[in-house]
């Protein structure tokens, strides 16, 4: 009796983890389609699990600020093109970075922005970046 119960429970758990049916783009509804617009062309080819995660994320979209909404949609396509393993590692890295003290986090962000600005300047001027001094 206990073995049967355990098997049934494991089966139930397995089926829950595997249960992620494919949702066609046409069935999303106008609101979801608008949020996930950057993925319109490739949505039907995305793995069901990713679709499910994105649909979960889309639920939070209405509560985001306009700036966050812009970033969300800008990054959607790139995010969907990552492999499941890359997304998993990205989540882990993000969570680890979130634990860094706020002041240090801000410092890292500032450095990243400065680096991006320099890259943009270099690209605009057409001069190749100088080789690091050894």
């Amino acid at each position: 009796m206990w073995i049967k119960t355990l098997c049934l429970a494991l089966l139930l758990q397995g089926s829950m983890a595997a249960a992620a049916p494919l949702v066609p783009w046409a069935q999303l509804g106008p609101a979801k389609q608008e949020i996930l617009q950057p993925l319109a062309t490739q949505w039907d080819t995305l793995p069901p699990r990713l679709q499910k995660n994105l649909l979960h994320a889309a639920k939070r979209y209405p509560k985001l600020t306009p700036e966050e909404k812009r970033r969300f949609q800008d990054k959607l396509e790139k995010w969907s093109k990552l492999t499941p393993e890359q997304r998993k590692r990205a989540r882990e890295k993000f969570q680890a970075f979130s634990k860094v003290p706020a002041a240090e986090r801000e410092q890292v962000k500032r450095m990243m922005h400065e680096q991006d600005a320099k890259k943009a300047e270099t690209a605009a001027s057409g001069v190749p970046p100088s080789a690091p001094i050894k």
Partner: protein
Amino acid sequence: MNKKLHPEQVRQLLNRSLTQLEQPVLVRLRDAREQALARHAERVAAPAFAWAGNWLFAATHHKSRYFAAAALLAIAVFSGGAYWHHEHDVSEVDVAILTDELPIEVYVD
């Protein structure tokens, strides 16, 4: 003749008549008495054992089913809760990454 007999006198009369009976008759009487007593004991014990057995079997059977159902329900609730919690956490982190100031590349190897 109509003299009323006292129980003690009856007992003495019976005992006296008993001593006058032949041995084979006494043996048959004793056997008959023992068989009657055994049948009586069976009749009294049988329903009691049957009831106790049924009750015990039903209780055990019912109990194990009850515990199995409860365990299954607990595992299902726990699994469902853990799965939902995990999915919810993943989606929270995904939204945080997608809305973060830093580009995705920072978090991707």
